[in-house]
Each structure stands twice: as C-alpha cells, then as structure tokens.
C-alpha cells in the first residue's frame, strides 16, 4: 500500500483514540472535583488534567488559571490547541478523506457523521454540565463505533495492522502519561494508607482508562495503589495496560513483517519493550522508581513511533 495511506490510517486511529482519552480525562476530573474539598486535598485536578493531556505549557500561554471552564474549553473545543477533541475529530476526518479508499464505508460513516455532528451540534461548545456530559459521551461513542467498525469490517491486511498500531501506540502513551502525572499518589511508602483522599484519586485514575470495574474483577480487593499500578502497567488482560498495548503492537508488527517477507528495526524495538514489561514485577519497578520507569517508557514508546514512521510511512 502507499506509504501515505499507511501514514493516514495510523494517524487517523491515533486521533480517534486521543479524542476518547481526552473525553475520559475530563469526565474523571469532573467527578473528582465535584467532591467536597476534604476528599480531594489541595491539588488542582484541572491542572493535572492538562498535564496528563500533555498540553499544560501551551495552555498557560493562553490562560491564567486552570479551572473547569478554561480547561474544558481548551481540551475540548479550542482551535488553538492542536490536540483538542475538536481538532482531533477534524484531523481524523481530513485523514479519512485522504484515505477513503482504504476505509470501509462503516468507518467513513462513523468519522463523517461525528464531524457533521461536531459542526451541527457542538460548534459553540457546551454551556451546561448536562451538555458537556452529552458531548463527552458522544466522543466516547464515536471512538467505540470507529473501533468496532474497524474490527468488524476491515480486511485483515496491512491497512488494518497500521490502523491498529496507531491505536495501541497512542493508548500506551495515554496510559503512561496518566501514570506519570499521578505516580505520587500511587507510592506505597506514604504513611496514610487508604484514606478517603487517596481513594478518590485512585478511582479517578482507573476511571480515566475505563478500568474501575476491571480492577475489582481482577483483584477482588479494595483499591490499593500498587495493584492499580500493576493493573495499568503489567496486567496484559486490561486492554489499556502498557503490557497489553505492547502485546498488540508486537503482534501487528509481526503480521506486517510476515506479509512483506521482511522485518526491521520497528519489530526489534517493539519486542525489546515488550520483553522488558514481561520480565518486570511491581516490586522491582517501585524499587527503581515508578517515575523513572514511566519516563523511560514514554521515551521508548515515542521512539517506536519514529522508527515505524521511518521504516514504513515515508
């Protein structure tokens, strides 16, 4: 397939995944900030929402204060934020248009309808909480529909694999970022174990990666920080965990390698990261520092993005 087509498919999937992640982040932050101050401590949750979205620096160039109004506006609708939900959907549509021939009609319909709704219904943003909740649901449903139609209708060939790679690379990045911002509340050596403050912080993390229910099924335990870290980093049964993302990335890259009859640095690099995740346990990770581990992962992950681009997309 054309390199440009592969590139568009890959980025299309990344944009949709990113839009969903932003919607979940806003949703989770709304829940935490709705609690009485005693439950959430002094941290500014809207500020950390910006950090997990990786846009804090550009936000503060345009705004003074990270409050609900400003952050929701910036993350959801701002034309000046290149990765606002609105821009993600618009970029996704533009990418879809350039690769229409590689998309199934169901996938095109999903993105095109979302883009039409974005303009018809959400062009002025949202004015009430109720509206916002509707908007966030619309974004998440778009992503689910896109994912589902890709899964159900695409031929299992390189087009599919490049698109899946976009999903998993973006997803790994998002999960790692939320861990990076929130790692301090996961540290086990803190004296207060399981106070109400932490409980709501923890459930917020899980909610933003849609893993709150999954946690209970996997561990059958009350929320414990190291188990949350274990779930998000090492447990490959959770679709948004780093381990699961890398299991999938390695598989997709191998499928491409087999189809093309050769492999390269992308396959090797992805396998390296997966092996590290497979051979780690939470004790070692906490010993060596969660923060360092995550930082290193984020660098490695974006490096894989660069290698894939060089090997296939240009």
């Amino acid at each position, binding site marked *: 397939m054309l390199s440009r087509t*592969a590139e568009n498919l890959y980025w299309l999937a990344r944009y949709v995944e990113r839009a969903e992640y932003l919607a979940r982040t806003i949703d989770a932050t709304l829940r935490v900030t709705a609690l009485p101050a005693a439950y959430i401590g002094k941290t500014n949750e809207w500020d950390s929402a910006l950090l997990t979205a990786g846009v804090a620096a550009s936000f503060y160039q345009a705004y003074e204060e990270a409050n609900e109004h400003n952050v929701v506006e910036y993350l959801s609708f701002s034309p000046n934020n290149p990765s606002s939900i609105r821009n993600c959907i618009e970029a996704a549509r533009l990418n879809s248009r350039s690769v229409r*021939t590689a998309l199934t009609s169901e996938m095109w319909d999903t993105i095109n309808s979302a883009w039409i709704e974005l303009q018809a219904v959400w062009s002025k943003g949202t004015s009430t909480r109720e509206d916002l909740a509707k908007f966030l649901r619309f974004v998440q449903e778009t992503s689910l529909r896109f994912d589902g139609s890709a899964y159900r209708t695409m031929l299992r060939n390189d087009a599919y694999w490049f698109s899946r790679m976009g999903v998993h690379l973006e997803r790994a990045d998002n999960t790692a970022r939320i861990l990076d911002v929130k790692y301090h509340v996961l540290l086990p050596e803190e004296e207060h174990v399981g106070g109400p403050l932490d409980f709501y912080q923890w459930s917020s993390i899980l909610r933003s990666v849609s893993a709150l229910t999954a946690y209970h099924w996997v561990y059958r335990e009350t929320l414990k920080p190291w188990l949350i870290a274990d779930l998000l980093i090492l447990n490959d049964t959770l679709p948004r965990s780093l381990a699961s993302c890398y299991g999938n990335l390695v598989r997709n890259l191998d499928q491409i390698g087999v189809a093309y009859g050769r492999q390269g640095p992308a396959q090797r690099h992805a396998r390296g990261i997966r092996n590290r995740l497979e051979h780690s346990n939470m004790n070692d990770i906490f010993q060596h520092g969660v923060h360092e581990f995550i930082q290193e992962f984020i660098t490695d992950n974006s490096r894989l993005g660069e290698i894939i681009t060089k090997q296939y997309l240009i």
Partner: protein
Amino acid sequence: MAVAFDEMNIPGGDLRPAYQELARWLKETPAEALEYRRQEAELLFRRIGITFAVYGDSESTERLIPFDVIPRIMSGKEWTLLEKGLKQRVRALNMFLRDIYHGRDILRAEIVPDDLIFQNPVFRPEMNGQQVPHDVYVHIAGIDIVRVDAEDFIVLEDNARTPSGVSYMLENREIMMRLFPDLFARHKVAPVERYPDELLAALRSVAPQSASGEPTVALLTPGVYNSAYYEHSFLADKLGIELVEGRDLIVKNNEVFMRTTEGLKRVDVIYRRVDDDFLDPLTFRPDSVLGVPGLMSAYAAGNITLANAVGTGIADDKAIYSYMPDIVKFYLGEEPILKNVPTWRCREPKDLAYVLDNLSELVVKEVHGSGGYGMLIGPAATKATIEAFRDKLKREPEGFIAQPTLALSTCPTCTTSGLAPRHVDLRPFVLTGSKSTTIVPGGLTRVALKEGSLVVNSSQGGGTKDTWILDE
C-alpha cells in the same frame, strides 16, 4: 425566447412515450411521499460524503450538489442515435489531436487556421512528434449535450481534458434504486454500473509496451482540497487502484514509481485528474507542488501512459469548437451526426460586428473559460453588464465566441411549489481504449434549479438528476 421543448409534456396535453409510466406513477404518489424521499436522498448524500468544494467560498468549503429525484428519461431509440454521434465525435477528436501533434494535414488543408493552434496556450509543443499508445489521446471524454427539439442533439461543449461528474451519475443511480425500487420495477432502465470496469479495461489497454503483463494503473489527484476530490477517491475505490498524489510518485531512470510500505512500485498508466500545467514542475509550472518532477521525461521515453494525454486541451478549446463539424468531415468523410450550436467567432471582424450589435440576445463565452464563469448571458443581463462586456469584447475579440441563447429542453423537477419544468443538459462519458469506444447508457443530467435559469453548473446553483435510458 421561444417556449422550450419539454421532454415529458407535449403542448396540448399529451405525453412523450418514454414518460408515460412515470406520469402514471407520479399521479398515484402523494406529494408528501415524494417530499419524504427527497429529504431521504439528501440525507444519504450527506452521509456518504458526496460533496464538492466551491473555490473562493470560505464559509462552506464542502457543499452538496442538489439532487432532484425525478429521473430524466430517454427512449432506447433516442440513445442509439446519440451514442452513434458521440462515438463519431470522439473518434474525430482523437484523430485531430494525432494530426495536430504530427503531420498537421488539417492545417495545410486550411480547415483550421494556424494561429488558433500555435498561439493557443493549451497547445503543448512538448507533444510534437510524441507517440502515444494506440494513438489514443482522449481516453475519457465528457461531451455536453443539449436538446432544443425532439429530433436533434446538439453539442454544447467537448470536454477532453479531465471531465468530471461520472461519480454523480453512478451515485445518483445507486440512491434512486434505494429510494424508488417500485419505479424501477415499472421501467426497464439500462444499467450504468459497469462504468468502472470499462474504464479500468480501457486504461489497461493503453499501457506502454514496457509495462508488465498486468499493468499497474493509478489515479493521480491534486488532493483533498480539489473540488472533485470525492470523485477521485470514489473512482479509485471502484476501480481498485491506488489514489496517488504527486508526492507519492517518483521518477527514476525515466520510469514512474509509487512509494509504498514495501518500497517503490512501478506505475504504468496514470489516470490523471491534474491539469497539464501542474503535472511536472520541470516542464510546466515550476511552482506546482501537485505534480511529479520528471514525469514528462518518463512520458517522452514511453514508459508511462497518461490518460488523458497531455495537450488535449487544444481539441476542446472553445475557439476550436466552431470548427468541429469541418473536423469531423475532414477526418471521417462523414456528415456529423451531432449538431453544433451556431457560433460567431469574435476574432473574425464580420462576426464581431454582428455580436456587438446583438449582445442583448447572445451568450458570449470566454474561449478559455469553464464552469460557467466569465460569460455573458445577454437576455438575462443588465444594461450596465452588457456595456462592460462590450468594452472587454472590443479590447480582446479573439478571446471570445458568441452563441444564440438556446431554449434548452426542460424536464419536470421538484420545486417548492410542486413539479415544474426546469432546463437540463446531459454529459455522457465516452471511453476510448486500444480497441473500442464505449459509452454506458446515459450520463450526468444537470438541471438549472432556478426558474428560467439556463446555467446548470454546480458551482452556480445547478443540480443533478438520474438519467434513464429505457431498454426497449
């Protein structure tokens, strides 16, 4: 202006035979049901994303072409005549191009004046003596046809460069079949869906000799911002070929390759929807970012076929148009089956004088214009507009031709006040390969939705209709 010929109703209350079943159906169908399906059709078009861009219109860069659900119907007999005329015309166009870029017999015979060719910006000296496979220059032609009475078909314009609109022909039918299955059950409508197959076969048949047994065809688009981008992606999809942009292609050793995830892959035939000017920045406009550097040298080396060929603009130029009946006679020794609109060439003093005296009754067109821009419709223009045009005409008479305002035929069309006659034209698509010329029955009917308007261009408020050729 005389009352226009209506394709359905004969004055006095009778119906033309091809429309009898439709008229019965319309009588049985309540107005609300028709309106409901009209809305349904619009929804479908928007969801499928069949849009076009209007240049210079920043507010809505993507618009829908209005679709009218009442089909335009022609009898098989009418089509047979039209088809014969179209094939004749396209054969002549191809022979004319071959001649212009080789022996130039027609110039020596003084049928067409030299300066119309050599001083014409769309003449491409690069094509002099250049062989094109099977001498086919115009692989895809869109010939614009109008009617003024029940007998004749008149060519309004030949489109021999990169004619568009065929995706609407195909999608209109698709949507009509979805919305009006009952109507199709009552008519025997000749299908159009084999167009993509015939196009692919035609393109493959003209692959260069150096191509492999299974030639690779690609569609070259200027990109997503082009007004016809939807059509480009639609056709690439239906043909099962790659939709490439200039940056996807690279020329090495006079061969053309596309960049793929598995490395470079040779391309043999390019169905290009990029104008000559932008094809190769090394040969034509150096500022073009849409083209492929070196493409013309690969073309000269005979390693790539471009469809349509470079330089076909010289055949569909409005200045050449008025010579088409003579061109047909010169190459084929036959009387032209399709008529021309009588045309005054403003470059000729006698014609100019007549045109200047009768501006308020004529349509004056720029020789190099398209899309309905830059033309004067005398009967509809204000005095001031006419006077402004008169000055333009005097300054540069060779840039214009003039034609009488034709009373284009009308077809029943949905309007806010029920069914009413609206003016229509027809663009059939003529495919020429190495062995044969084919036309799927029908084409794109464009309709001027405004009452009394004669401008059918989509950029100026025109709509489209499904075109039915009855298989009797």
